[in-house]
């Protein structure tokens, strides 16, 4: 009897020790995950800040070594490119999401939902190749339009799925209330359901746009890049991400430093986006 108690006690301690070891390991994993994040932010800010001044935002890229070089064209280019992407991707995403949540409880809806999830896993560079074959080959030259279309394809899954999930969160009683007032179903969906879910949908749009702003691979051979000022959608267009890539891999220290600044500006733009969206969605529709 004594012996058995002893064994139980031993096994009890062993279990306790295993428990605390495994739990600390999981804490350790969380800590390790945060380290690269801190390192990347630390280096981007400390290295990027050296060139961060007004010149960077208002001047054009200059030859190596010349002071006062900027990336005005790339900043505007990035905004235009995600603008084109959003103009195509947002309506498609929202309408598809609306279909999936309001009418998509059937086999076809299941298929679309599934393919949207699969689409979100397709590498962005493959989307770039597709945009190249659809737009660049028939047009016979690189263009911002091709880049924008590639970005739109990348945005669609995010916006679709967020829209669907957000609309599903709207209580059924809201729809019933609208229909009970004799409002047609489509008006109920647009004016009541979508409006209630707007905040969540905006988050999805923001997520799609900010991911698109950070994309490089699909732009390499669609929008290509441009050392000059261009706002025409049928011409090649500069973007911050392609600049970062080109300047980081170039053998000039001056350009390498500018790449860090461009990375900092890119992250700032993405943060400002999320800030603006948060302010808009907070003040207008408090649910």
């Amino acid at each position, binding site marked *: 009897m004594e012996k058995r108690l002893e064994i139980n006690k031993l096994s009890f301690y062993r279990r306790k020790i295993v428990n605390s070891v495994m739990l600390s390991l999981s804490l350790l994993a969380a800590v390790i995950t945060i380290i690269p994040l801190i390192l990347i932010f630390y280096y981007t800010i400390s290295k990027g800040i050296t060139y961060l001044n007004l010149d960077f935002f208002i001047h054009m890229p200059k030859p190596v070594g010349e002071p006062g070089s900027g990336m005005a064209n790339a900043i505007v280019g990035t905004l235009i490119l995600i603008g084109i992407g959003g103009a195509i991707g947002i309506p498609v995403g929202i309408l598809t999401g609306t279909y999936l949540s309001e009418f998509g409880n059937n086999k076809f809806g299941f298929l679309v939902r599934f393919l949207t999830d*699969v689409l979100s896993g397709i590498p962005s560079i493959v989307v770039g190749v597709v945009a190249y074959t659809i737009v660049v080959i028939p047009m016979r030259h690189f263009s911002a339009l091709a880049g924008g279309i590639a970005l739109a394809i990348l945005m669609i899954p995010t916006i679709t799925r967020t829209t669907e999930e957000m609309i599903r969160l709207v209580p059924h009683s809201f729809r019933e209330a609208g229909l009970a007032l004799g409002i047609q179903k489509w008006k109920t969906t647009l004016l009541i359901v979508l409006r209630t879910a707007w905040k969540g949908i905006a988050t999805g749009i923001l997520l799609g746009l900010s991911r698109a702003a950070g994309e490089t691979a699909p732009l390499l051979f669609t929008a290509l890049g441009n050392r000059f000022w261009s706002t025409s959608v049928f011409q090649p267009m500069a973007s911050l991400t392609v600049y970062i890539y080109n300047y980081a891999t170039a053998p000039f220290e001056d350009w390498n430093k500018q790449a860090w600044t461009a990375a900092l500006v890119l992250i700032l733009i993405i943060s400002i986006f999320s800030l603006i969206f948060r302010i808009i969605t907070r003040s207008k529709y408090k649910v």
Partner: protein
Amino acid sequence: MLNSNIEDAQNIPALKDSENEPDNKSFIQRIFGKSNVGDFIFEKLTLLFAVLVLLLVVLMAYQMYVNSQLSISKFGWHFLFSSTWDPVTEVYGALPVIYGTVVSSILALLIAVPLGIGVAVFLSEIAPGWLEKPLSFLTELLAGIPSVVYGLWGIFVLVPWLRDSIEPYLSDHFGKLPFFQGAPYGFGMLAAALILSVMVLPIISSISRDILRSVPFTLREAAFGIGATKWEVTKLVLSNARSGLLGAIMLGLGRAIGETMAVTMVIGNRPIISPSLFDPSYTMASVLANEFTEATSDMYLSALIELALVLFIITIIINIFAQLLVWSMNRKWKKG
């Protein structure tokens, strides 16, 4: 159900004004034979966009297939198993880059899977509420950093660090192993695998966290009730979530295989097959990023598009399996 009730209601004569105005059906209404034209148009409009998304996937495959005909008809299956990638003599075999893609992704998963699932366990089972939210936010932030910024950091921070301290150390102590031979350049398989592991970690951890959360609480309560420790409960939860976790890992794999910019910037970009982690390598995505704009001949372009097609097919297959696993996991608990 609701919809049909409403339609029925509108068909009851008393509810309509039709007795006062016998012919108030508009032209469009008569054509479609429906009382709610707006609803009809709205439903079909959203349906149209849903069909568009469906067609998009088909169009992508079709476009790449058509545009790579030149290369497909010349090399056939040989394209996948030949190891010469030579634009000068116009011979294209994708074996070295497929090797580079697979090895870099698997190495990345070897690092990211234990860490990612560890983080998921911490977030869903252990962390108190006040810590869990900011920590989830930070891991999502990690997922939001653009790939090219990872690459930038890789070139100027990770690669010098590997070259100056880690790789010399490894080659001094484990130099006899085939994995750690050759000159430590910094650029190469090791750098690519490390940076990929950081990039797929947030995906694996956030999906695994959601999956662990979907395991019903009654299971945990039952285990606690018979005196299990927290770790024993966690083991039970993990084993119940197996298939979903496998799905999360495969989603991470799909992401690692298609990741382009960061890998292109640190992997060294040479199509060779070498067991050493110090040697440069090449992945399918980085070949496309590097050589697409330089493709001068039709055959070269066609071979590159075929490479994109192969990448597309591989990631689609991986994603289909992964999504099926994740979906079935979520349904299992919802039904039960």
